């Protein structure tokens, strides 16, 4: 890492440049009353503007104040770390092939103890070295598609993931695992669910809530669960594999259209909403939890439809929402709007004229509920009935995020409002369920 990229700016960067020192060098920092020696470390994002960070011989980092009086001397150059990956384990005969297509997140990474930085570790040999047990489960074919934080994903990225996944499936792997940042993993899962027709094998997104540079990371167990399911589970759907509880002993496989991140930080953040989870991986065994699922099938009829229309918005209603927000989308040329209404599927009567205008302008406007759990029903109250009359489409028990992704996909396939409406209401990847069961 160079000084320029190390986070030091302004005065500190000037002083360090003048002293001719680089990140990783062992330096002496002399202030009027005290002197420290240590390795120069990149600056922490939160650090003060007047301190440089050094690692003492004891391994501890401290910040040292730098003023015009401070003298910085380079004692010796740092040793560049050389990572020697362990030899790749021999492929065990008879194991199935699983493709691992990495998109980012910290599911697989390695820590640089010299600077504390975390680097992605995503080649097959990296994966084996981080999670050696993988070599007992499957023959891994690892690729890095991109390495981005999931909040930076766009529908364009979904398309690339869909295409790369389809390619691997065409090549005949037994399943595909997609490491992904957790923040928007459920959106990507929904997107892939709609993009694939007649999927022949499982496609499993996997993430981690504790980065894999920590001994307590959930990455390895989630990854092992995902690979196990990708190689051997009987279903052929897009799904998400994550911890079932705070314990490390059980991984749940959630259906891609029915899953949502429901906790900011816990391992058990992902929940199946309005549906039981698809399967569980525990003690090395995959158990199906649903009877009605898509089975593995021959590849011949497999098709990919990876286009998404991004002029679609998700609007959460709240008391006092100014209807001009709806007008904004119409005026900007949006083609669809998913409303996240209150309760059974309502927005204030004050919004009616704007909703009416949107639909008359050709937008598809559909209703989901911000309650998350349950089904919209717009026949119960006047407001609901009024919205139905205006042409708002009720989306049953579909998750608002899934509805957004589905409408993006629908409008990526057709611009014909009638056809689009029909596609939106057609159950394509178990995004609708007929029955809502009591939660456990």
């Amino acid at each position, binding site marked *: 890492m160079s000084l320029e990229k190390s986070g030091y700016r302004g005065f500190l960067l000037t002083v360090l440049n003048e002293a001719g020192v680089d990140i990783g060098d062992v330096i002496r920092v002399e202030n009027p009353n*005290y002197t420290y020696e240590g390795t120069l470390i990149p600056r922490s994002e*939160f650090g003060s503007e007047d301190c440089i960070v050094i690692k003492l011989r004891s391994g*501890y980092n401290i910040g040292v104040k730098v003023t015009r009086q401070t003298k910085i001397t380079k004692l010796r150059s740092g040793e560049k770390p050389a*990572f020697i990956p362990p030899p790749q384990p021999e492929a065990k005969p008879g194991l199935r092939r699983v493709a691992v297509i990495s998109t980012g997140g910290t599911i697989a990474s390695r820590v640089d103890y010299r600077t504390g930085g975390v680097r992605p570790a995503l080649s097959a040999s990296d994966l084996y070295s981080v999670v050696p047990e993988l070599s007992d489960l499957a023959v891994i074919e690892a690729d890095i598609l991109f390495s981005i934080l999931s909040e930076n994903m766009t529908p364009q990225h979904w398309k690339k993931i869909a295409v790369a996944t389809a390619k691997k499936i065409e090549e005949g792997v037994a399943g595909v695992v997609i490491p992904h940042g957790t923040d928007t993993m459920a959106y990507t899962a929904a997107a892939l669910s709609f993009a694939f027709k007649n999927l022949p094998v499982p496609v499993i997104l996997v993430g981690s809530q504790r980065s894999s540079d920590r*001994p307590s990371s959930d990455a390895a167990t989630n990854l092992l669960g995902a690979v196990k399911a990708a190689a051997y589970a009987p279903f052929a759907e897009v799904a998400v594999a994550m911890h079932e509880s705070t314990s490390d002993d059980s991984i749940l496989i959630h259906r891609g259209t029915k899953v949502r991140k429901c906790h900011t930080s816990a391992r058990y953040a992902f929940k199946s909403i309005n549906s039981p989870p698809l399967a569980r991986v525990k003690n090395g065994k995959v158990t199906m939890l649903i009877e009605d699922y898509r089975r593995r099938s021959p590849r011949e009829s497999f098709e990919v439809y990876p286009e998404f229309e991004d002029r679609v918005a998700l609007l959460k209603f709240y008391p006092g929402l100014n209807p001009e927000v709806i007008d904004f989308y119409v005026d900007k040329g949006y083609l669809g709007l998913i409303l996240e209404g209150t309760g059974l599927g309502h927005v204030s009567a004050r919004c009616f004229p704007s909703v009416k205008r949107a639909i008359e302008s050709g937008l598809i406007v559909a209703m989901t509920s911000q309650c998350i759990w349950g089904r919209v029903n717009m026949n119960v109250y006047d407001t609901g009935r009024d919205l139905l009359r205006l042409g708002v489409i009720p989306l049953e028990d579909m998750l608002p995020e899934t509805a957004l992704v589905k409408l993006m996909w629908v409008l990526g396939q057709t611009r014909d409002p009638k056809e689009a409406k029909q596609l939106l209401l057609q159950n394509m990847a178990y995004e609708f369920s007929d029955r809502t069961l009591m939660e456990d």
Partner: protein
Amino acid sequence: MKFDYKKLGLKVGLEVHQQLDTRHKLFCACKPELFRGEPEIRFVRRLRPTQSELGQVDEAALFEFRKGLTILYEADRDTSCLVEMDEEPPHELNREAVETSLTVALMLDAKPVDEIHVMRKIVIDGSNTTGFQRTCVVALGGELEVEGKKIPIQHIGLEEDAARKTGQRANQVTYRLDRLGIPLIEVTTGPVISSPEEARKVALAIGRILRATGKVKRGIGTVRQDLNISLARGALIEIKGVQELETVEKAVEYEVQRQVNLLKIREELERRGVREEDLAIEPVDVTEVFENTKCKVISKALSRGGKVLALKLKGFNGLLGRELAPNLRFGTELADIARFWGGVGGIFHTDEMPGYGVTEAEIDGLRSKLDCTPEDAVVFVADSREKAEEALKAVAARAREALKGVPEETRVATPEGTSRYMRPRPGAARMYPETDVPPIRVTEDLIERLRKALPEKPEALLQRLMAEYGLNQKLSRQLMDSEYLDLFERIVKEVKVSPTLVAVTLTETLRSLKRDGLDVASIRDDKLTEVFKLVGSGVTAKESIPEILAWLSKNPDKSALDAVKALNLERLPEEELRRIVDEAIEDSLQLIKERGLGAFGPLMGRVMSKVRGRADAKTVSAMIKERIHEIQSKPDPR
């Protein structure tokens, strides 16, 4: 055994860890307290060794992981939140704890760092849910004078305490999360201490500084001393977790003893001409020797499909039974190593044979199968083949170390002051930044503010205690070295009661109750204060204090008033007391007539035996004297 420590080249460094009494934990808002009773939450985790850039992992850590060790955590909602469970990132570093440790740093003339950076120190035995301990340097380079000698203070740190281990089964270890995250201040001295006695004195001096802040916890387990001990010809040994000050001295002495005796074993082996290449590496299956054994441990292992594996130690006969320190034989060391690396229950060896149901004939069979001379020793283990093999390989490696002298290792202190093998010494501490916690800039303004409010240094404090509260020097010193100084001052300010009584109670009385085996540390401050309030307001007499405290230590959830009622120690109303005195007087009229005031002693004894704790002696004595005078001055009615 007396040693010339100077000649042996003894060097000791101390690491004192003391829990701080902050309002909440170091990285979250949980109470820094322990819970009793059944846990509300249980969960199971595994910790995976992380790999460094160099592809290295801690050997012992990797070993634990490969064994498939799982960790069962127990928690309750009062003392743990998602932060302890490693389900939520840490909150910001507790400022109260930072200021207390900076105060300690200033008292030790150390230089606070300009910016505090929290680090992660990898620990994967399960004691931290994250797999690392969060720790930071607060100050460096201080000094403490102990009896004229300058002791350098290398490092003052602040870190989170670990979860506490409450159980261990074959493949699962249990920890409680309550202790995890309690702030610990760490004070490390340079390795300049040169005798056991000096180690105790330095620990005491550091303890006094820490207690002077008035912000430290007390009771068993709230302070732990780690010792780094080395001898010129021995090795650097880290002894962890010495809890009592008195044990520090013994721990150093016993460790010197252990190293000296290991060196003697080396000399003896040299004399016997044992060379490294003579020592067996591979264990031998000797199951057939024990097919009809009467030894319960062995027959049980065999009935489960286990094997008996044995290892010949050429030239070791008699050395395994040799005592290294009290209750610690060389055989004990081998057994501990076998337990750690092989997960076996223990080992047998020929120095303790025949015994444990193993017969002379079996030993003969064993020896002949291994082709032993009388000079050789044999170690054998009955367990599953894999475990027995791992265990004996570790024993073989340790036996080879005996030829070189003292192997470096980390040991854990026993309550008696000896120590047992814990694990190999970890490689260079593997630390990396805790990026979830922003660094704290230690500004000159903050340092100035803390410097102005520094607590008294121990000597000044001693003088003040004597002058302000009229305590004698001995009592003042005891109070200062107790953990109750802060509470003493609060009670004396709040309650109208003799300072000497409070000081005696908080030092001598509590100590003697503790000696009787009572858990006095469990009596909370507010309960102790209440006891003095009850005495001060006359609800009970001061004589009843020991009984009340003993009762409270067994009933930690009850109040002092509950104790008084349960023990029937409420002060008698005056008329009731007068009635008891009168009754005694009536019974002793004859005695009074004969002996006058000479009857006072027996009368006093008789009344006090009835009212002890319910009336103070002074009142009783006044009443009795008054009545004796009355009777004497009354004319005889006859």
